[in-house]
């Protein structure tokens, strides 16, 4: 028994050591880009699947979008250190303000309408950022705006395949209703 415990402790220690190492590397990396981050400094591929249930996660080709976007601020606002595009944001963040995390979920909540989130919003309604969208909308609004303007894919399944649960939810695919007589639904 004690041998097993030792092994477990050793594994825990290893895990902690690994985490410390990763943290140290991350710290070093965070300081590497001097000034605003430039295109090309981001990851090549990001899997966006933290909310996936009705649809599979999205394999987001970050590198390709870096080339298309004007700059990091197009999607990341001021968090990468460059000046935000919106004049309204520049009031406070004109110099850019590098954030500790640049991932969407660092700022955009997965559940923007939970009782807790709404209570916080109610308390801070006279401050800024009261109209910050949730994580799902942050993804979709950022993607769809450009995709509609630049002719990118805009269909739901153009970016993420629907799961079986999704088919059931939408009464589509294998769950599609039998063809109904013409005349519409329930009128």
């Amino acid at each position, binding site marked *: 028994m004690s041998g097993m415990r030792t092994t477990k402790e050793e594994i825990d220690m290893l895990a902690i050591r690994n985490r410390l190492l990763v943290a140290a590397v991350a710290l070093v990396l965070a300081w590497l880009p001097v000034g605003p981050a430039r295109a090309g400094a981001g990851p090549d591929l990001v899997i966006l699947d933290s909310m996936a249930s009705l649809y599979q996660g999205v394999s987001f080709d970050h590198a390709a979008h870096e080339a298309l976007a004007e700059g990091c601020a197009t999607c990341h606002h001021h968090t990468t250190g460059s000046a935000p595009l919106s004049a309204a944001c520049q009031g406070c963040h004109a110099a850019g303000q590098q954030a500790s995390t640049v991932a969407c979920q660092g700022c955009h909540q997965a559940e923007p309408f939970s009782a807790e989130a709404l209570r916080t919003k109610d308390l801070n309604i006279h401050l800024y950022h009261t*109209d910050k969208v949730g994580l799902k*909308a942050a993804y979709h*609004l950022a993607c769809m705006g450009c995709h*509609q303007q630049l002719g990118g894919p805009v269909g739901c399944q153009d970016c993420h395949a629907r799961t079986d649960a999704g088919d059931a*939810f*939408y*009464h*589509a695919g294998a769950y599609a209703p039998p063809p*109904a007589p013409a005349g519409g639904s329930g*009128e």
Partner: protein
Amino acid sequence: MMKITRRRFLAASLAGGAAVTLAPARKALAAGSFEGYPEGMGVLVDLTRCIGCRSCEAACNKEQQLPAPAEPFDDPSVFDQTFHGGTQKRRTDESHYTVVNRYQPEGEQAPVYRKIQCNHCNEPACLTSCFVNAYTKTREGAVIYNPDVCVGCRNCMVACPFNIPAYAYSSVLNPRIRKCIFCYDTRLKNGKPPACVEICPQEALTFGHRKNLLKIARERIKLHPDRYVDHIYGETEVGGTAWMYLSAVPFDQIGFNTALQKEPIINNVKDFLATVPMVLAIWPALFSGFHLLAKRKGGHGEDHAQPQQEENKP
């Protein structure tokens, strides 16, 4: 017992008449308008964000356990459906509490999608029209109803300025009114957003305290005056609604009734209703008085303190 003199009678009639004429003015002070519960919740529908994916329809169907749809919820062909000779787009009915319709405003490149559902008025006309009190405006802002007391008179369908309550014509034994209830039973009263809001990928639906939503809506218009029409539909319409809309195109181009009054519907009849008890109380006395006076002229010296029953009728 006091005898009715001519002088006393005239004074009483004048006072009564004055009470009737003054009643509406007094009512305006006393009744006022209900501005909605201060902590009431609402939803801000930003039509500039809606992409017509119909996920809200699917979520509503699942949450409210409605019958399976005739077409899949990802089928955009439903946007082409029209009824009544092409004059009517899809409407809410007993098995669809919310419906998204597509509009193509003149001079616009992209179509506009508009979700309709119960707007959950601050002072609902359906509620005030219901004589069995089936409807309730909850303090959370939802307009719910008790199908068990509904007698199927369908007054609410006529009263609703948005044509939302639908009748379950298909149910022979237990027909009743059906409509969006803001997911009150399963979500709202537990502090959760309605199912349609939660599923919306674009956050075209923003859930929150109504007073905060108004602030957010004004802020959006102020930040993007080029993107929005300077109007929050539902802020004042029929006394204000819990669900409100922002749009890039004029509201009358996308099916909204922009001729609605600012006052709650009930205010149209409050004045009249206030005079009903007045009439019931004063007219019998007034006309009895006339009658008594007329009788008195006829028979001098008779005692009229105890008139006969038939003579007392108005």
